[in-house]
């Protein structure tokens, strides 16, 4: 009896450890949504087009994070590792490729910053969100196209 209860506890602990990372993603996503909500409620006056664009990007990034969190949790429930050598390789390629694209993104932002009427914070925010989108798009491409390395 003791052996069975020990085994059940071990299994429970294992699932909890594997689910931990997925839970963190959900917590961060909730935090981002909460702060966006606070920002929206504290914003006075009507929102500009740029603000709406920012909100759209934030929602997209959060949706993407939730998608990854859901994938991790469902993998943990099936008893599979949430990460393996292929997912790590995809992450590595995504990081390298999105970094490369981000360099060009910042060059483009430097080029257009004098031609548009935006504050420094807004330009920095747009750049950071642009980097997040670049990363997400690269991840989707590598995750669905595969990494053959040939």
């Amino acid at each position, binding site marked *: 009896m003791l052996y069975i209860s020990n085994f059940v506890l071990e299994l429970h602990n294992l699932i909890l450890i594997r689910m931990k990372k997925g839970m963190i993603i959900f917590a961060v996503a909730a935090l981002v949504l909460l702060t966006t909500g606070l920002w929206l409620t504290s914003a006075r006056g009507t929102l500009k087009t740029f603000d709406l664009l920012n909100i759209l990007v934030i929602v997209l990034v959060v949706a993407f994070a939730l998608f990854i969190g859901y994938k991790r949790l469902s*993998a943990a429930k*099936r*008893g*599979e*590792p*949430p990460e*393996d*050598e*292929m*997912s790590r*390789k995809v992450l590595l390629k995504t990081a390298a490729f999105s970094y490369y694209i981000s360099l060009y993104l910042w060059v483009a932002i430097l080029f257009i910053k004098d031609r548009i009427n935006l504050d420094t914070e807004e330009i920095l925010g747009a750049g950071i969100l642009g980097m997040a989108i670049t990363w997400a798009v690269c991840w989707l491409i590598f995750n669905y*196209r*595969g*990494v*053959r*390395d*040939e």
Partner: protein
Amino acid sequence: MNNRIKEYRARYNLTQEDLAKKVNVRRETIVFLEKNKYNPSLKLAFDIARVFNAGIEEIFISE
């Protein structure tokens, strides 16, 4: 690099999920391997070959 994972899996009556659990990877990785969209590490290739009681060169064929 081509492989015969699908063929061997059918021979041993294993699902993609079963094989994934046996070699400790996600089912998605097995799907990508079977579609030739991912080249495994040497360790994973050996683990898969061990599951099928075959040599690594019987499962993975270099083009």
